[in-house]
């Protein structure tokens, strides 16, 4: 809302210097450039992107530890690392963590950082809402994980938490309550962010940047935001029903009272299947940026890429019941959803073929980013093919709830999503931080991860077809499960090693950076607008908002066809790139209120579970913060206008500040 006070604090007549220091204490509006406080109050989309990315990597480790625990438990028959009960909690929280606390926020990091840069904007449409998304996401993530401490253990109903397993009778601890409320909080975060980014994509493009000139990454992220926008309310409904059932004795999933547990399955998968594309489409976008760059060719069939992305977005809404073939939804439904599932493989296949055609005849450079990107295509194809086998309902009846399914979705989500996002990390690292990731370590990271990944999840196809069911905490000797389970466990340890190498790479690259030449604005000779500005990106992004004349605008600034039709370089990067030295650019002022709003939500959550008075406190905090926010002007009239100039002067010698990309 925009009812702002004209000037928030009227100064006394004449004498403005008298109140140089505000008497408002903590209620003083923050200004840029004050160490760690700057990070808490930032509304800069790049910093928020970094916050998303860093937190996502943290939860990657959490989810990874949970994965290792699962694999250790299953390494040998009759494993006893975890008890059955803890095992249930660990695999549930592994799934929830990896989906909601790792891949989605990592994709959000890319979305936040690169959508404005790729469309030539200075920030997102609602900078403070952007900060709000992040802080709500973080508070939800923390809330969800505190169930280990105060909730009597994590949720133990599987990540899709089927009724009636999720009822109080079968899950008496508070774990599922934390699941229900925590995912709602995370949902609010994603919803806010999706509205924000949709408006950004539609409304903040640079002059000439038509929709069909947007880079494919931006396109895929935009489609992802639409999927989030429409899928999240559905899961919100389901979670509300679950919460009312558990906390207030409603009858939504009580079969004794005539309720239908399948309702949960439908609501969950109406959300859950678009969620699959929410996970994979950002990685597709990343790959679609990297492969053309390192093939030195424009993306083959840009329109097909975009429209197949849109087609996936649409068709993703018509296939959800293929997760439910064995739940008794009736032969007609099974046939219909089986068909629609086969059809959705078509646009996905179009994408794979287009990537291959992009590489065909290109001048390939196999950097680590490119290797990850190619591996993404290959691994996703394997996962996609095993997915097609699920669409055949009779076969699926055999595969449901076996390790074949586990193998399939890890090939899609890890092989497609995670490898793709790692490709993005290596690709854009110099843009964000102003130094490369070490390529030698990156190669180790890549190969060990690729081998470990295939060793972990490849054998699961075999295990599943042998009949090993998923979510069992142990298995007896003599079923022939021993060897491949051990192989999978070894593979998972290899993945862990590769992640450690990545972390070491981050540290080492940072340490080595001062001794190496800086990457410059455009180290990979890339194609989209973010490479036309300095690395790391200055606070104001673009000195002048670029005028866009076509697709791959930055590439065409550097290269043109000569009279013989050959592509020749017409400008060096140094000539063409912006210098980042603009002054007087008007940027939105930072604010603490997003953080304050976000702090209130988990309080409401705890309050609903433990004591409603606490919920009242949380609600009051949230609402008061929202009103403070609404009354605070977008731009602090008291703030200096070109803050990025004097930024480095008041360094609090804070560790966060050191890693500040500016």
């Amino acid at each position, binding site marked *: 809302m925009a009812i702002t006070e004209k000037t928030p604090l009227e100064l006394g007549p004449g004498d403005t210097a008298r109140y140089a220091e505000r008497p408002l204490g903590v209620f003083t509006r923050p200004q840029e450039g004050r160490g760690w406080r700057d990070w808490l109050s930032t509304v800069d989309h790049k910093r928020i992107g970094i916050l998303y990315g860093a937190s996502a990597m943290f939860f990657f480790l959490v989810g990874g530890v949970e994965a290792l625990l699962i694999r250790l438990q299953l390494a040998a028959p009759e494993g006893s690392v975890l008890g059955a009960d803890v095992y249930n909690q660990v695999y549930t929280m592994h799934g929830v963590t990896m989906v909601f606390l790792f891949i989605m926020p990592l994709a959000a990091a890319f979305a936040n950082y690169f959508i404005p840069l790729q469309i030539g904007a200075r920030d997102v449409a609602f900078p403070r809402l952007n900060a709000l998304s992040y802080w709500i996401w973080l508070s939800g993530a923390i809330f969800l994980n505190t169930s280990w401490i105060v909730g009597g253990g994590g949720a133990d109903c599987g990540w899709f938490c089927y009724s009636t397993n999720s009822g109080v009778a079968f899950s008496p601890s508070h774990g599922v309550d934390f699941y229900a409320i925590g995912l709602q909080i995370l949902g609010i975060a994603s919803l806010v962010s999706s509205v924000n980014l949709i408006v950004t994509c539609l409304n903040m493009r640079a002059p000439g940047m038509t929709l069909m000139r947007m880079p494919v990454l931006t396109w895929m992220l935009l489609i992802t935001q*639409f999927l989030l926008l429409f899928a999240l309310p559905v899961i919100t409904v389901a979670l509300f029903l679950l919460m009312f059932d558990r906390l207030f004795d409603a009858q939504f999933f009580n079969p004794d009272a005539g309720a239908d547990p399948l309702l949960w399955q439908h609501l969950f998968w109406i959300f859950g299947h678009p969620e699959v594309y929410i996970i994979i489409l950002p990685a597709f976008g990343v790959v679609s940026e990297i492969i053309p760059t390192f093939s030195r060719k424009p993306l083959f069939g840009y329109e097909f890429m975009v429209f197949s992305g849109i087609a996936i977005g649409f068709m993703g*809404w018509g296939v959800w019941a293929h997760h439910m073939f064995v739940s008794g939804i009736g032969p007609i439904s099974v046939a219909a959803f089986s068909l629609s599932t086969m059809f959705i493989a078509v646009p996905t296949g179009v994408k794979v073929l287009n990537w291959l055609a992009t590489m065909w005849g290109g001048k390939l450079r196999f950097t680590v980013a490119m290797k990850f990107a190619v591996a993404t295509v290959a691994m996703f194809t394997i996962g996609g093919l095993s997915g097609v086998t699920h669409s055949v309902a009779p076969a699926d009846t055999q595969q449901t709830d076996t390790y074949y399914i586990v193998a399939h979705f890890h090939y899609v989500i890890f092989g497609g999503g995670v490898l793709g996002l790692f490709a993005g990390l290596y690709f854009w690292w110099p843009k964000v931080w102003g130094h490369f990731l070490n390529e030698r370590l990156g190669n180790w990271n890549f190969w060990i991860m690729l081998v470990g990944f295939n060793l972990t999840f490849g054998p699961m196809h075999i295990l599943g077809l042998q009949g090993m069911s998923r979510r069992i905490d142990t298995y007896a000797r003599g079923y022939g499960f021993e060897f491949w389970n051990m192989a999978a466990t070894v593979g998972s340890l290899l993945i862990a090693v590769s992640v450690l190498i990545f972390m070491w790479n981050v540290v080492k690259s940072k340490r080595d950076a001062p001794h190496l030449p800086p990457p410059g604005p455009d180290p990979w000779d890339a194609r989209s607008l973010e490479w036309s500005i300095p690395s790391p990106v200055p606070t104001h992004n673009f000195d002048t908002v670029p005028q866009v004349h076509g697709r791959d605008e930055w590439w065409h600034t550097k290269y043109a066809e000569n009279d013989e039709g050959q592509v020749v370089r017409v400008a060096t990067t140094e000539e063409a790139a912006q210098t980042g030295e603009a002054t007087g650019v008007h940027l939105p002022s930072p604010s603490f209120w997003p953080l304050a709003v976000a702090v209130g939500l988990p309080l409401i959550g705890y309050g609903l579970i433990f004591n409603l008075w606490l919920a009242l406190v949380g609600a009051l905090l949230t609402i008061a913060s929202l009103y403070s926010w609404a009354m605070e002007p977008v731009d602090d009239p008291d703030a200096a206008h070109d803050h990025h100039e004097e930024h480095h002067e008041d360094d609090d010698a804070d560790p966060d500040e050191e890693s500040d990309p500016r």
Partner: protein
Amino acid sequence: MSDTATSEHSEPDTAAEHHDTEHAHPSDWAYVKIAVVLAVITALEVFTYFESVVDWGVALVPSLIFMMIVKFYLVATWFMHLRFDSKLFGRMFTAGLILAVGVYLVTLTVFEFWV
């Protein structure tokens, strides 16, 4: 910069439509007339409840749904200004609306709700 920029803005899906907006908002009297129409339709709807007066037979449910859609449409187009604003707004809204109707109709069908 902005002068050259505006011509580049025009793209088929959005820009052409906003020229005729913001001027044509109707008078208060038009709103009142719409409200009267809405009230009359609502009265008709309520009228169906008293079956002793008229027996609607099989036409009952279709006519109720028809009246509902008319009311829905009138509020969205007049009170929410979809009629006068950019089509982009309406598209965002109808996308959600159609998706919701479609997805939930399929769900109810799978539950054999209509049988």
